[in-house]
């Protein structure tokens, strides 16, 4: 049986269309002028015990809303959802016992207390027996080096240390499923790598099911066999991560700042690139942010270094950055049929 079963699930928010000014605010009191946001709009999915699933999509796609429904905080507008055979919102307390949740940068530990005290309080809350507690703390020590932080107050931890503590804490009571909502947001590469290894190790030794949302495709690639892409409340893709990374893993975006940038720069850049590398060259040009020109390159077809060399010779470039393909770009490509 699936651990999580979701069928035709929707969550719609009704939002008041607010008017301007004081008079407007007053009229709002009696207004029936609502707009509906379809945060989650008819999704279906099944998650098996022990899976790590990457749940991704651009900002506002509905990822957090789905997680809030799975954890029983939000009641769906329509559809069915069961976790471990139970309806989450029907009995929040019972469900909380079998779940672990980490929500972004907001810690759930006791802000003013030393780290170890938070773990001891959690031990009481979840009724973890001493032997299990000791065993788990040993594992966290091995994976995270938690002992070093024991006596430090939570509010004095760095963001990365706090995240590692929060993630460890979410596994303390041996939950069946852990929800990680953007656990790597705002962290540097080395901490990200550590978090990935901790999560994958905990999943391996405990068989804990993990639902991970992130804006970093690298997280998904490192951790998840399965990926679900969500946009505007609908599932665009649900399948093996490999299929997505083989498509997008090869993409890099060159972000350039060009001197004397004007209306003609983009088209001239496009033309010159087509002239040098051919029409079907896997290189696209766009300008999304002011001052920056984005050149996205499919490295499978055209080497990035060639493109960079060529542009540097042809245009007065004074700043360059290389970034991995963005979530927005992936979604756009999926829409355009990239995953067939």
């Amino acid at each position: 049986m699936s651990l999580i079963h979701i069928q035709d699930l929707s969550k719609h928010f009704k939002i008041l269309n607010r008017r301007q000014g004081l008079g407007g605010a007053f009229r709002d009191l009696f207004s029936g002028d609502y707009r509906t946001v379809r945060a989650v709009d008819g999704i279906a999915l099944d998650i098996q015990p022990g899976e790590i699933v990457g749940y991704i999509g651009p900002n506002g796609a509905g990822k957090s809303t789905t997680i809030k429904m799975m954890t029983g905080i939000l009641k769906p507008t329509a559809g069915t959802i069961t976790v471990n055979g139970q309806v989450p919102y029907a009995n929040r307390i019972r469900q909380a016992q079998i779940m672990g949740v980490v929500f972004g940068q907001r810690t759930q530990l006791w802000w003013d207390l030393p780290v170890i005290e938070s773990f001891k309080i959690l031990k009481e809350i979840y009724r973890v027996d001493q032997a299990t507690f000791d065993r788990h703390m040993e594992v966290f020590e091995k994976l995270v080096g938690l002992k070093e932080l024991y006596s430090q107050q939570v509010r004095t931890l760095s963001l990365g240390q706090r995240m590692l503590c929060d993630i460890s804490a979410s596994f303390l009571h041996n939950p069946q499923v852990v929800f990680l909502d953007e656990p790597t947001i705002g962290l540097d590469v080395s901490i990200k790598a550590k978090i990935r290894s901790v999560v994958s190790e905990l999943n391996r030794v405990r068989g804990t099911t993990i639902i991970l949302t992130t804006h970093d495709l690298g997280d998904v690639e490192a951790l998840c066999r399965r990926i679900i892409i969500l946009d505007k409340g609908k599932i665009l893709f649900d399948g093996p991560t490999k299929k997505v990374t083989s498509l997008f893993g090869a993409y890099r975006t060159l972000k350039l700042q060009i001197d004397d940038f004007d209306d003609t720069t983009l088209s001239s850049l496009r033309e010159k690139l087509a002239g040098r590398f051919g029409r079907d060259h896997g290189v696209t040009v766009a300008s999304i942010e002011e001052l920056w020109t984005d050149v996205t390159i499919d490295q499978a077809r055209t080497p990035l270094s060639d493109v960079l060399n060529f542009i540097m010779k042809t245009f007065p470039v004074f700043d360059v950055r290389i970034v991995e393909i963005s979530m927005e770009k992936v979604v756009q490509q999926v829409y355009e049929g990239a995953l067939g």
Partner: protein
Amino acid sequence: MRTLARYLRLYFIIEAQYIKARMQYRADFLVSSIGMFFSSLATLAVFWILFNSINDLAGWTFMEMVFIYAFYMIAISPMQILFDHFWQLRFHIRQGTFLKYYFRPLNMMFYYMSEMFDLKGLTQLLVGIGLLIYASTQLEISWTAARVILLLVTLFSAALVQVAVVLIATCAAFWVVDSWPVLGLAWKLREFAPYPMSIFDGAFRFTFTYIIPIGFVAFYPSQLFLRPEQVSPLVYASPLIGIALFALMYWIWTQGVNSYTGTGS
């Protein structure tokens, strides 16, 4: 029963940690306790100055006022000590940090309130007890066993009324973006509680008795000990009023918790 024992145990574990953490800042603790001590006495000073120019307030003597005030201080201490986290509710709600209280297998009000334990409220409680003993000696109230039980019961229900009134106002934050006016009003009204209700004119007295019943925080229950012969039958219902108000408050809280959907993120 087992749940109650578990929650009590949990509460002691959490609060012990908080007290330990606070005690590390000894100066902070001392200063805030001393501040509380003097602010407790400030109202008493007002009475004292007042009674230098008049002999009684609507028929109540200075010492009787001290008794009512002492009762009031004891009755509001549980709010101060156990429920002090209510001040932060509207910030937690607005910033989305309230979300975390949903994730533990605990009663949410318990979990939320357990995150704050206000030590300086103990100062207030002690001053209140001291004053109550002093005033009742001066007034020659004889403390029979029945009276002591009555005192404990009425103090308990007065505390429930106080907690309920303030928390109902606090819950406005679940539905109103800027809920300060509501809470601020409730907090302000509380200051009328230690005065004889008879000094207020009809509309206010009606409000403080039936609508926002702060009269039941100190004045009405005190009458049972000061002027038992004048007590209106309604006062005997004060434990019921306390329990009913607290239940109403808890119901509103539950509605709020269920309707709050969190800021998107």
